[in-house]
């Protein structure tokens, strides 16, 4: 009797939607044995208990858009496909709070909220991205500059642990300091600590008007000056993005019609004063907005004052950069056949010196084997200790995270 033969029926007794894996189910090249689609937190818990009994390695999957981020898992026996858990469980509009299941696509949640004039102020970076996937990778888009990320807007979480125990933290109120905030720990943990099945979010009202001011700019010094002029002003931009070396700085203003009009005028003056020759004003976001650059995908962070220098260095290394110049969180792309390792080394040194980091988010396997994906990670021993507590047998996405966690 193989473990597959044992695992199949055991998993099926915990969940009525279990099948054997097919080619498309591979996680970053690693084929799983089974795929289960639990319908509830309880079913997820049952599956994880079964997995614990049989020592199956488990990877949770939302829309599957970021499974190639980070490093591939050492082994996968079971893919937990959360696509059946896609409900918006509650939208308490009067409290500006929503509760949703992890498999719910961000866009779907937004549609529900928009009906009541509200939104979760987080951008879905890739089409179909689910809440769970966004939380696990701490993905963010342009609006993070003003509103923060999942770690800032998630106020409660339900997690199923590796041993199948269900644990909640936080709650349904925005202001709450009772107990540890496990949601923060889960955010960006790449599924290595537990499976998030439900989350509670703080919401914002939808703005009634928005404008984008875009400036074509050739040199990085001017680009940095444009960014600084807006960032250090009181026009309260929702986002300040760059697209480089394409040569664009773009500012998103959101609010009321009158307010956005007056801030658009003020922002135009700031940009002109900082060296913009022409400022394009549109209601539409530019086509590149919020899209990652092509190719090997890097995430680069640095202090705000270093963004100009980073653009320069990236261009020198042949790396295209897009992202939040206003938050100092940018994404780089370069062709897989380029000198990836050399570019990573140079740019990582730059980012580290500027108080930030460089992570190789996605790359073909042969490229990935030539680079250090995560770079230096301080406090790694504490992180290992946390992993050791939550998943002592290393069954949740083993090897997907920093330091081989």
């Amino acid at each position: 009797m193989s473990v597959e033969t044992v695992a199949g029926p055991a998993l099926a007794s915990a969940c009525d939607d279990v099948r054997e894996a097919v080619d498309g189910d591979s996680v970053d090249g690693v084929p799983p044995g089974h795929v289960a689609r639990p319908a509830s937190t309880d079913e997820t818990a049952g599956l994880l208990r079964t997995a614990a009994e049989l020592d199956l390695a488990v990877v949770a999957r939302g829309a599957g858009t970021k499974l190639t981020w980070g490093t591939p898992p050492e082994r996968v026996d079971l893919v937990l496909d959360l696509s059946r858990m896609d409900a918006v469980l509650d939208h308490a509009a009067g409290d500006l709070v929503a509760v949703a299941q992890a498999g719910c696509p961000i866009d779907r949640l937004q549609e529900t909220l928009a009906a009541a004039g509200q939104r979760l102020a987080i951008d879905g970076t890739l089409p179909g991205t689910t809440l769970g996937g966004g939380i696990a990778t701490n993905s963010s888009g342009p609006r993070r500059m003003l509103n923060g990320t999942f770690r800032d807007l998630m106020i409660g979480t339900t997690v199923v642990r590796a041993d199948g125990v269900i644990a909640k933290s936080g709650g349904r109120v925005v202001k709450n300091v009772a107990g540890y905030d496990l949601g923060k720990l889960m955010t960006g943990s790449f599924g290595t600590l537990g499976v998030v099945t439900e989350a509670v979010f703080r919401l914002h009202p939808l703005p009634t008007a928005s404008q984008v001011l875009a400036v074509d700019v050739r040199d990085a010094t001017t680009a940095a000056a444009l960014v600084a002029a807006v960032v250090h002003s009181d026009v309260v931009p929702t986002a300040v993005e760059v697209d480089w070396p394409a040569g664009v700085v773009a500012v998103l203003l959101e609010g009321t019609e009158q307010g956005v009009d007056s801030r658009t005028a003020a922002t135009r003056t700031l940009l002109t004063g900082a060296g913009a020759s022409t400022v394009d004003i549109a209601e539409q976001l530019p086509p590149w907005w919020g899209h990652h650059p092509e190719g090997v995908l890097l995430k680069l962070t640095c202090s705000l004052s270093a963004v100009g220098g980073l653009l320069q260095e990236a261009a020198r290394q042949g790396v295209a950069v897009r992202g939040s110049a206003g938050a100092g969180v940018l994404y780089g792309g370069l062709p897989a056949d380029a000198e990836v390792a050399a570019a990573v080394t140079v740019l990582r040194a730059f980012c580290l010196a500027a108080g930030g980091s460089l992570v190789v988010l996605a790359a073909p396997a042969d490229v990935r084997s030539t680079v250090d994906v995560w770079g230096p990670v301080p406090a790694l021993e504490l992180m290992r200790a946390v992993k050791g507590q939550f998943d002592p047998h290393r069954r949740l996405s083993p090897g997907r995270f920093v330091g081989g966690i």
Partner: protein
Amino acid sequence: MSSTHGTTKTAGAVVGPSAPERSGPTGDSPQVRAVRRRVQELLPAKTVITDHARLRTYECDGLAHYRVTPALAVLADSVDDVATTVRICAEERVPFVARGSGTGLSGGALPRADGVLIVMSRMRAIREVSAEDQRAVVEPGVINLDVTKAAAAHGYYYAPDPSSQQICSIGGNVAENSGGAHCLKYGFTSNHVTGAEFVAPDGSVVELGGRALDAPGYDLLGTVIGSEGTLGIATAVTVRLTRTPEHVVTVLAGFPSTDDAGAATSAIIGAGIVPAAIEMMDALAIEAAEAAVHCNYPEGAGAVLVVELDGPEVEVRQEFDQVERLCRDNGAFAFRVANDDVERALIWRGRKSAFAAVGRISPDYIVQDGVIPRTSLPKVLRAIAELSASSAVRVANVFHAGDGNLHPLVLFDDSEEGQGEAAEEISGKILDLCIEAGGSITGEHGVGMDKSAYMPRMFSDADLDTMQMVRCAFDPNNISNPGKIFPTPRLCGEVPGRHKGEHPLAKSGIAEIF
């Protein structure tokens, strides 16, 4: 604000003042003696306090009900002082407790009789203010308001503004994830701290987060913020600075009742406005504030709202017109506007004095801190009024209405037989109301010593056990501020079912096919 603020009663569970003294070895155990000797050998004499009278200075925080004299205090001047002390404590298995300014209202900084109090208030340097990076790097003893003062010249400020901001420390803020009146719009400490230098409970010094955002790895920084000193000690903090808003308008509106003021609050939020702050006071709280600071709030008001709007001028003016209309639509009979800082201070004076002011109308009081979903305000306020009426215990209500954070002030006279107990009972029942409404047992003041017994009402055993797994990762020997937050400690040794020897499947002969 005076530097000593003491509420005389526990806000939550009745645990009794001697609880922390009961457990563990006394101040003179061999371990404590060893720590004392070793610390004295390694640190300058002025840093180590052993004199009982001086140690008593630190016997309580803002919740004066609990008092414990520490075995030893270290007045740290540097990260090395902290790391050395913690390392020795770890080696000798002696508990330590960090203390900032001691303004905490949940007994978080309550010392251990069998442990070391590490006082952070001498570490007061603002190491750097970088407007261009929107960051400041400060030592943990730095007073909250001093960060804003240092940043103001650059057009920046530090957004989290607890009412105690003139005296509380950034280290204490980090430990409590403190917020203030303005966190409705701007969030809490966790949204404004990007990095910390941190002494883990084994004495090692690590960097958490950084100057830039999204440091790779687990968000240990976010986990440490709000952990009430139970995961280690912050020795330097990198904070985010926020642009000073272009325009600020503060209004005071008088309503016939809290129901009307609550309806106005809902209407404002419902209109898509996110004010910087919405604060409410009821008639009894207004009475107290009038007696204390003559704030001259509208006569006959059953409730007042203080609403502050900030941001770009055009939007603030628009929102102001809406707020005025929504207040009047919901029964406001008085509406005052402050357009400059002097007028603004006048309006805020009544609100900010509220805690201390109830001292004018009652000899003793409990400051409670609980949270409810904002839409439950009318229901919960009515229930509090009923509790008060049925028990003859007066309750004054002051709260952050925008985010449903209640601060009921439960009034009593301790010289009257039974009043203290009655007040504690009402105070506890208010927390039950918060939990029933789907809220929280604390929005600002933390669990500390005071509310640990309430944690099981809000969280299941599994929830608490999971939180303590984090604690075990950081502090397996349970020496960093033990006895706070969690009603019962978890034994960290017991890693469930760790495989020993052969894997069960391998044993049954099926694993090799696998």
